[in-house]
């Protein structure tokens, strides 16, 4: 209960800083909260916001889901493969550490400026954190539990399904959350760098034409999207972790 009150206080603080900034810089640089709200209402009313949100959501969800669908099995396989997985390790980490924006020009050359390129940029951003975390989760398997399972006569598959996989789940979900945020960032990056479209496109449009109230409304929409995505995944995580007494 108290955390909710504290969060509201922090929100009030953020609004106060924003307001002060708006007062200091003037509405042409930083619009105040009511002006931003009004702009947001306008964008929502004429359908601009919803259309852009739809475009972005399509790119985001396609790229992210494809990344998850590829990364989780790959990470599990890498963890289960023992030495072979270990052999791949440095290359995977190297790729994970390379800023994925570095690949944008290559993606454009290969896939053009359309939806495919955007989806692929999101995919690239989200895949590595999910893969690396899933792999780490398999490696973090509790040796004592594995030995216990062995003593009951469980085979490799049973041990993997009953001990290793559930143990890795929190890591996988952490990776999915990380991938979700990076995927969101890459959605905007993709929309800025390729054919201007979606929320990223509106950001570029309003930023370049100094319509700051609209610009801020889009920024805040993105922030909300980020919160919605991570909170959603947190709820999923809780469903899977009923056994954890908290």
């Amino acid at each position: 209960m108290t955390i909710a009150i504290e969060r509201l206080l922090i929100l009030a603080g953020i609004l106060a800083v924003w307001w002060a900034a708006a007062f200091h810089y003037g509405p042409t640089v930083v619009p105040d909260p009511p002006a931003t709200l009004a702009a947001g209402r306008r964008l929502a009313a004429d359908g601009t916001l919803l259309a852009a949100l739809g475009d972005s959501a399509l790119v985001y969800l396609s790229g992210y889901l494809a990344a998850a669908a590829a990364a989780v099995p790959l990470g599990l396989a890498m963890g289960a493969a023992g030495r072979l997985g270990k052999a791949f390790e440095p290359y995977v980490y190297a790729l994970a550490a390379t800023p994925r924006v570095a690949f944008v020009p290559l993606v454009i050359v290969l896939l053009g400026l359309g939806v495919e390129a955007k989806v692929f940029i999101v995919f690239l951003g989200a895949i590595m954190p999910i893969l690396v975390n899933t792999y780490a989760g398999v490696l973090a398997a509790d040796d004592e539990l594995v030995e216990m399972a062995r003593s009951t006569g469980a085979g490799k598959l049973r041990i993997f399904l009953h001990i290793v996989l559930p143990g890795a789940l929190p890591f996988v979900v952490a990776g999915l959350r990380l991938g979700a945020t990076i995927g969101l960032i890459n959605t905007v990056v993709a929309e800025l760098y390729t054919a201007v479209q979606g929320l990223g496109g509106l950001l570029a449009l309003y930023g370049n034409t100094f319509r700051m109230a609209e610009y801020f409304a889009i920024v805040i929409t993105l922030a909300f999207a980020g919160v919605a995505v991570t909170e959603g995944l947190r709820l999923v995580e809780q469903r899977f972790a009923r056994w954890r007494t908290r």
Partner: protein
Amino acid sequence: MNRPEPAPSGAFPAAPPAEKPMPIIELAGVSKRFEPPRGAPAVDALRDVTLSIDQGSFVVLLGPSGCGKTTLLRLVDGLLPPDSGSVRVFGRAPVPGPGMGFVFQSFRLVPWSTVRGNVEFALAGTGLDRAARRERAEHYLELVGLARFASAYPGELSGGMKQRAALARALAPEPEILLMDEPFASIDAQTRELMQAELMRLWALRRSVVLFVTHSVDEAILLADRVVLMGPRPGRILEAIEVELPRPRWRYDVRAEPRFIELRAYLWNRIRELVLSDENSDFFGRSRDF
């Protein structure tokens, strides 16, 4: 099927006489050394251990920390191969499975399974169908006094309750061999006495082989047909003492028996000497008067 052959070829030169039961567990010249990852010197967890355990006997391993008791149980269960020597269970190299139940020193309950789920997990290899597994699990949870917590998760249990859940899991497949690594160490004194009596009663009924590890001299004498005293660095067997106290021992005050008191004093002194004279022990050189 287990009737001893008149002359087993070569393996056991001194073939046991026909009337003597065949040893169920047989360790001959077993050594096990652990190489720590880097730097630290290798540890001789067990060196040249020979031990033979007959059908239906209750053997207690007693000895100070680090003398290889857990390692010995893992070797017998087939979880670990010996470096040299041979480990035979029912005449063959051991294979882990429902035929042997292992109560681990740390409880090793699966945190994302309910208590019932944990017990049922050990029943997968028994060939019982789903309903029978459920029933079997409930029965053994009842036996250890956890029936009401069958649907709880291990995180909701106290230490002693976790230990009892782990005990139920090891008992549930009704194994021919029970390997118990300090199974009552974290149970309170009253429950511990109940569990000891319960274990003796179960064992009197089913007469499986029990290989039981404890630090408690009293517990060792109370339970054992034979107490095997072990010493550390290198881990080895020092001596084995038959405990002839009449059974069932829960029927009378066994601790008041002169033989119990005598054994207790002897084992206490042996262990204390072991700890104080072991230069690697944490208590080496302490005054011997305390």
